[in-house]
C-alpha cells in the first residue's frame, strides 16, 4: 500500500539545516499495523506528515496505492487524503464548537456525502464506538477516553484505507488507553491499515511490526508476528 524510498526532509533556518528524514525507506502492506518508535526529534512526526500528504518531502519517492504522489499538488493530495486517510491525534483535536455528532460528521461533509447518508453512517460508527448516547454533547463535556473514541470515530467514519495515529494514548490513563488500542486493533482486523507513532512499548505490542528510528533514519525493524 505504501512504499517510500530514500525519503528526505530538511528544515532550514537562517543559520543551519537540520535533517529530519535521511534517505528513509520502508514499505507497508495493505492490512498491516505498523508502529513507529524513536526518541523525540527523530523524525516520527515529519514522517507522519508526509505519509498523511500534509507536508512535502525534499527528495525520494512515495508510492501510495501504486501511485507516485510525491509531486502531486495540494488539490490532488487533499483528494487522496479525504478518501483514504483518517487521523488520530494524541490531543484528540476535536472542534470545541461542534457536538460529538458534528465532529464525526465532518469528513463526510467534505467528501460530499448526502445528509441522510451522513446521519446513518455517523450513527453506525457512534454505536460501534459506544458513544451514541453522547452524540449531542460538546467535546469539553466528555472524558479523555470518550474524546479519543470520538476522534477515532471521526477517523474511521469515511472507511479510510489507512489510519495515521500520532501517540493516540498519550493523553489517556492506562484503562482508557487500552480501550483505544483495542479499537484500533479491531479496525485493523477489519482490514484497515494502521501506522501509529508511539513512545509506549506497551502500545507498540498491539502492532504487527515496529520500525525504530533515530536521526531521520530507520535503525531497526522488529516483526511481532
Amino acid at each position, binding site marked *: 500500500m505504501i512504499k517510500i524510498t530514500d525519503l528526505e526532509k530538511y528544515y532550514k533556518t537562517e543559520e543551519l539545516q537540520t535533517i529530519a528524514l535521511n534517505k528513509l525507506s520502508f514499505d507497508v502492506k495493505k492490512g498491516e499495523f505498523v508502529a513507529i518508535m524513536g526518541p523525540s526529534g527523530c523524525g516520527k512526526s515529519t514522517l507522519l506528515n508526509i505519509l498523511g500528504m500534509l507536508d512535502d518531502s525534499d527528495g525520494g519517492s512515495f508510492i501510495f496505492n501504486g501511485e507516485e504522489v510525491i509531486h502531486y499538488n495540494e488539490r490532488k493530495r487533499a483528494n487522496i487524503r479525504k478518501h483514504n486517510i483518517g487521523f488520530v491525534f494524541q490531543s484528540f483535536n476535536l472542534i470545541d464548537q461542534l457536538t460529538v455528532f458534528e465532529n464525526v460528521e465532518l469528513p463526510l*461533509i467534505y467528501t460530499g456525502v448526502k445528509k441522510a447518508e451522513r446521519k446513518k453512517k455517523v450513527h453506525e460508527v457512534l454505536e460501534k464506538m459506544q458513544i451514541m448516547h453522547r452524540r449531542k454533547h460538546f467535546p469539553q463535556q466528555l472524558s479523555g477516553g470518550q474524546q479519543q473514541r470520538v476522534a477515532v470515530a471521526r477517523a474511521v467514519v469515511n472507511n479510510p484505507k489507512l489510519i495515521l495515529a500520532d501517540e493516540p494514548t498519550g493523553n489517556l490513563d492506562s484503562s482508557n488507553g487500552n480501550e483505544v488500542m483495542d479499537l484500533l486493533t479491531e479496525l485493523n482486523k477489519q482490514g484497515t491499515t494502521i501506522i501509529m507513532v508511539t513512545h509506549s512499548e506497551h502500545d507498540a505490542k498491539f502492532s504487527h511490526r515496529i520500525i525504530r528510528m533515530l536521526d531521520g533514519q530507520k535503525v531497526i525493524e522488529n516483526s511481532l508476528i
Partner: protein
Amino acid sequence: MKSHIINTIIRNLVKKKFLSLTKILGLIIGYSIFMFLVVKIQHETNYDQFWNHSESVYRVALDLKYENGEQVKSAKNFHGASELLNLELPEILNHCNFNKDVVTIFSGSTQKIQDVDFVFSDPSFFDVFERKIIKSENTGVLKNIHGVVISQSFAHKLFGNENPLNKEITVNEGWKFVVDAVFEDIPDNSHLKIDVVATYKSLFYYMRNFDNTRQILIDNPNFTYKQPDPYTVRRWRTPVAYRPYCYIKLKEGTNINTVESKVAALLTKVPLPQNLKDSNMAFNFQPIKDIHLKSNLDHEISANGNTKQVLFLSIIIFVVLFVCAINFISLNTISNLELLKNYAIRLFSGATYTQIFQLMFVESFLINALSLLISLPIAYALITTQLPAHTIDLSILLYVVFVLILIAFSAALIPFLSVVKNRFTSGLKIVGQKINQNWRGQKLMVTAQFSITIILIVCTIGIYKQMQFMMQTDLGFNGKQTLFSFSPMTMNQHPDIPVKLSTFRNELLTLKGVNSFSTSSSIPGQTTPRLNNQVKAVHTAGPFPATFNEVSIDDAYLKTYNIKLIAGENLSFQNDWVSNDILINQTAAKDMGFLSANNAIGNRVTLGKHDCTIRGVIEDYHHTSLHNAIKPTIYAQNIRWDHSVGYYSFQLNSDNVTGTISQITQIWNRLYPKEEFIYNFSEASFASQYESDQKFNQILTYSACLALLVSCLGLLGLTLFNIKKRLKEISIRKVSGASVKQIIIMLNIDFIKWVLVAFVISIPISWYAINTWLEDFAYRTSIDWWIFGIAGFASILIALTTISWQSFKAATSNPVKALKEE
C-alpha cells in the same frame, strides 16, 4: 453543509461574546454613519437633477469686468439677456425670467401664511421648469391677469383638502389673485423654492392700477402690456434689486459652448448703457444642476451648498468606514487565529483551502449583514434629524451592499492569507503543538485606526476653536437685548409710511423698557441686497473704483446696535425720515480715497440721482458672518426700501423684557391691526448664519467620538488577545520577581508606542485638513500647537485607560494558575 456552517458560526459568536459584540458594535457604527452621510451627500449632489432635460437648462448669470479691475459676478441678470438669446439663437428652446419676493398671503378672513416664496415670471415659466399641472377649466396657466399658479403643498397649507382652484388669495393685504392652477411641488433638493407664480403682466397691471390709499384694484380695460423687447435700452438698465434671474433651455443636442461663443456678437446688437459698454459684459451659463454646489455669486436666490463641505463629508465617510472596517478586520483576524486549530482539523478531515475560505467568508458576511440590519433603523433616525424621510434614495442600499461585501471579503481574505494559508505547511504540528499566534498586521491596524482618529479629533478641536472665535470676536456692534421684526408688509410703498412710523416710534419711546427704536433696510446678520458701483464724488466724471453696499438707516440705528462713530456726527432725526446725509464705514472711506476718517467728513458724493453729504464715519463692524470680509458700505437716510423687506429694531433694557415685548405688541396691533408682530432676537439671528458650520461641526464631533470609541474597542480586543497569549510569559516574569508595575508597563508600552507613531503620522495630515477648511473664512483663528497636543494626549490617555485595566488584571492574576494551565 449550510446548516453546519451556520451552527459553527453562531457557536463561535456565542463562545466569544465580548469579541463578537465588539465586532458588531464597530460595524453598526460604521454602517449607520455611512448610510447617514451618503444620504446627506446624495441630497447635496442631486440638486436640480429631477427636472426634465435638466442637462439642457442653464441660468444666465452676469459677469461684469471694469477697467479698474472691479468685478461683478451676479446670479441676477438684465431682463434683456435671456430675451435676446431666445430671439437671436435657434439653439434656444425656451427661456424665462423671474423676480422673487417673500410675501404674506391671506385667504378668507382668518387664514394667513407668512414667508411665502412668490415669483413674477414670463408665461413660459413652466416650459423651462416643467411640472405636472392641474388647471382650472376657465383659464389657462399664467394667462389670466388676475391668476396665479400655486404649489401643491402650499395649496394644502392654505386650503386643506378643499379644491384650491378658483379660490381667491390676497398678497400683502392688497393685491387679490385667483388660483388658476396647481403645480406639482418642486422637490426639496432644488435651488428654487417657489410657492406661487404670477406673470410680469399681472405685476405691471397691479402696480399701475392698484390704489394704495384705498387698497383697491381699479379696473382698467385699456391696459396694454408692452411685450418685452431686448433691443430697447430699458431692458438693460434695471438696478440690481429689480433684476431677474434668467434661465434658458437648449434644444436637444445643443452644446452650450455654441451659445456662449455667439454672445459677444449678440451684445453689439443691443443699445447697452455706457456703464455696461465699459464693463466688458459677459454671460455666465450655469448648468442648473451645478447651481447649488458650484455657484457662489452675488445675489444668489438662496443660500447655496458648498463643494468643500461635501468633499469633507465624503472624506469623513471614508475614514470612519475605514476605521470601522479595520476594526472588524483586525478583530476578525485575531478571532481566526484562535480558531486555527479548528481549521487544521477541518483540513485533515478533507476540507480544501477554498472550503476554509468559504467558511470564513460566510461568517464574516453574516456578521456584517446582522450589523447592517441593526444599523438600518439607527441610520434612518439619524437621517430624519436633518432631512425629510422622502429624500432617502433607495439606491443607497446598492452602495451599502457593495461596501458590505467588500468589508466581508477583506475581513475573510486578510486573516485567510496572513494567518491560515501559510501555517499549515508544517502539517500535524499545528494540531499537535502550540500554534504561533503572532500576527504582525495588528500593529499596523492599530496605527492606522489611531492615525485617523487623531486626525478627526484635531479637526474637531480646530473647527470648535473657529466656532468659538466667531462667537467671541468683537463684531463691532452689540445685538444684546435687541429684537427685530420685519417692517409691516402693508407699509411697503404706502404713502402713510412716514406718519405711521413716527407715531409708532413716538409711542415706543414712551415705554420704559425700550432704549431705542430704529428702522433700516438691513440689520446685522442679514444680507445687504443693494449694491452700487456708480458712487462718485460730486462733480467728478468717474465713479470710485469699488462696489459699495447701500443700507437705509435712521438716526437711531447706531444707538440701537451700539455702533461706534469715529468721525463727524450721527444723522439727525427727520420728520419725513429722509435726508441727503449719509454715513460711511471705515472701509468705504478708504475706498473713496480719504486718508483719514476725518478727511471724509463734509465731502459730497453722488448716489443715484442724489448728491449726499458724508456726515460721519463709523467704525467697521461685521454686518454678516466672519465668512465674509467687511465691505465698503454707505448708510443713507431714506426709507425707500423699494420692494424689499425692511426691518424694525428695538433695543430693550434688561428689566422685564417679556412685559416690554407685550407692550410693543399692543402698540403694533393698534397701528398695524392686520399684521402680527413677529420678532426675533438679533443676536440669535446673527448666530444662525453659522448654522451650517455648526451642523458640520456636530457631524465631525460625533464621527470623531465614534471613531475613537471603535478604535478603543479594537484596541481592547487586541489587548485581550495579546494578554491571553502572553499569560505564561507574564507568570514566569512574576515568579522571577517582576512587580505588577513592571508588567503593566511592559504590556502597555507594546501598544502605546504604536499610538505614538499614529500621533506623529496624523500631525501633518490634520494640519493640512484644518487649514483647508479654514480657507473658507475671511476671519479665522490660529492653528495652535496645543490642538495637536490635546488630541494626542487625549488619544493616548484613552488608549492607556482602555488597555491598563486588562494589563492590571493580567499582572495581578495568580501565576500558579496560568502555569498549571500551560
